[in-house]
């Protein structure tokens, strides 16, 4: 499931094709001359993490050796209590932080995009200019990047707000702009770090639906960090639970829920059973619910 589905309304090239090669982006420390290229993830993996470690300069161990593979085109959520290393793992995957051990291998044609809990918009730019920023930084000319940004903003339902400034937007709208800014790069791999955590319940559920629809249309790989069990179960097909101190994986669970997710699902016994599994693992991991 989760492969690309044509959607004539989106007007963008679909990007869920299988990776044609693997590129190593993080290596073991220099003292261990291992050739990480030898251990390729199998054909369908978007990212393969192997024995990944992160110990901070203070001596705090954020992540203990972690091995994990995310299938191309899958929607995976990552749950865990605060301080369990979720965000550290995200930063490592995004290349914003360097591992102290292990490897992260991404498919060679990976185009990575991130959405953070804070929308991170530039307040002096219009919605359009914010959405076009990644292309602008990569040297795409103005007409082309504006056209791409308009398409991305249409996909998140913000066509009417292109000329507004962030200060004129609601929290949910800011998050949509942030999502559009990620989509404008036509990512193959989307990292979301508690993107809707600061929003009210109704807005969050709307955006969850939106995100899942976008994923089904485009077939990119999603890693979705959240601390909300219901949200994790609702949007994803596979849920990982991390425990804290140091961060390690305590549950890797395939959710058996229908492909089509609607609000009705949230009140069904099936959904309650699946969230129960996650809730139990999270409670055992030391996380507050």
């Amino acid at each position: 499931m989760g492969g690309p589905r044509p959607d004539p309304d989106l007007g963008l090239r679909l990007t869920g094709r299988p990776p044609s090669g693997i590129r190593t982006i993080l290596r073991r420390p220099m003292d261990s001359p291992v050739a990480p290229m030898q251990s390729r993830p199998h054909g369908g993996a978007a990212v393969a993490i192997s024995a990944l470690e992160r110990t901070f300069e203070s001596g705090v161990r954020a992540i203990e050796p972690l091995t994990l593979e995310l299938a191309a085109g899958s929607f995976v959520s990552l749950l865990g209590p605060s301080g369990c290393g979720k965000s550290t793992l995200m930063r490592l995957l995004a290349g914003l932080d360097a591992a102290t051990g292990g490897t992260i291998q991404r498919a060679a044609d990976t185009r990575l995009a991130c959405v953070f809990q804070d929308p991170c918009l530039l307040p002096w730019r219009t919605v359009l200019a914010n959405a076009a920023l990644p292309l602008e930084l990569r040297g795409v000319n103005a007409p082309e990047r504006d056209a791409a940004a308009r398409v991305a903003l249409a996909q998140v339902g913000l066509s009417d707000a292109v000329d507004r400034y962030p200060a004129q937007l609601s929290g949910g709208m800011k998050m949509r702009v942030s999502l559009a800014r990620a989509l404008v790069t036509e990512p193959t791999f989307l990292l979301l770090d508690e993107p809707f955590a600061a929003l009210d319940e109704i807005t969050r559920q709307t955006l969850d639906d939106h995100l899942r629809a976008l994923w089904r249309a485009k077939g990119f790989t999603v890693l979705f960090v959240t601390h909300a069990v219901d949200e994790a179960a609702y949007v994803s097909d596979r849920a990982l639970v991390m425990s804290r101190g140091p961060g390690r994986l305590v549950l890797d669970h395939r959710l058996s829920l229908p492909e089509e997710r609607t609000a009705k699902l949230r009140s069904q016994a099936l959904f309650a059973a699946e969230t129960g599994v996650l809730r139990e693992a999270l409670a055992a991991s030391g996380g507050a619910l």
Partner: protein
Amino acid sequence: MSAASTILPPLVPAVLVLGTLECLVRSEVLPSFLVPAPSSVATALVTDAAELYPALWSTATAALLGFAISAALGTALAVLLSSSRRVERAIYPYAIFSQTVPVVAIAPLLVIWFGWDQTALASAVIVSIFPVIANTLAGLRSTEPALLDLFKLYDSSPLDLLLKLRVPAAMPQIFTGLRVAGGLAVIGAIVGEFITGQGLGGSIAVARQLQRVDLIFAGILLASVLGLMLFGAVNLAAWLALRRWHASESRP
């Protein structure tokens, strides 16, 4: 708020104070050789126009040009200092040290270095450049880490990072520095003119020798108006640049 409710409240104390002062001087409670009646200051503004307005022009030129040089040079220096911690550590202590030297004490030196005609300008620059450097540097240094991550994620070039993130994000603080610098540039120019005898500073010094308190007050009034105009111009520029996005300028 209507224009009347904005303008009227500050006018009330002004009218009261000026009226009382006028009465006190006319009834000779206050000696007119110490405090001039407001009406005689107004008269001086007209009768001494030949002296005052060319002086105002000369002071305004020095202050405005000095302010412009401070703004450009100060911003450039702050960008340079922000480029690396090592450069900042090497140079910033001297920038602070330069602030402890009273400009009045070095004004005679400025005459020797820059000549009579450029002393007021040099003095205006020296006095007004530090707030520009300090505020711009603080602004460039306080870019949100999350936004820096965002630019890193999208492989931003160092130039893009500076021009598209750090400088725009620092604009509110840059304008704070410019507001302070505007007022200081007028002060610096007048301090220089006390030595050279030109401009409003020179006119005030001459009026002191002539015991013309009305002329001194007229000079002070014009210098204040000049400072206010510079302050107003910076505020207008700040409003135009920031009104759409920054809370400090969102009121019309």
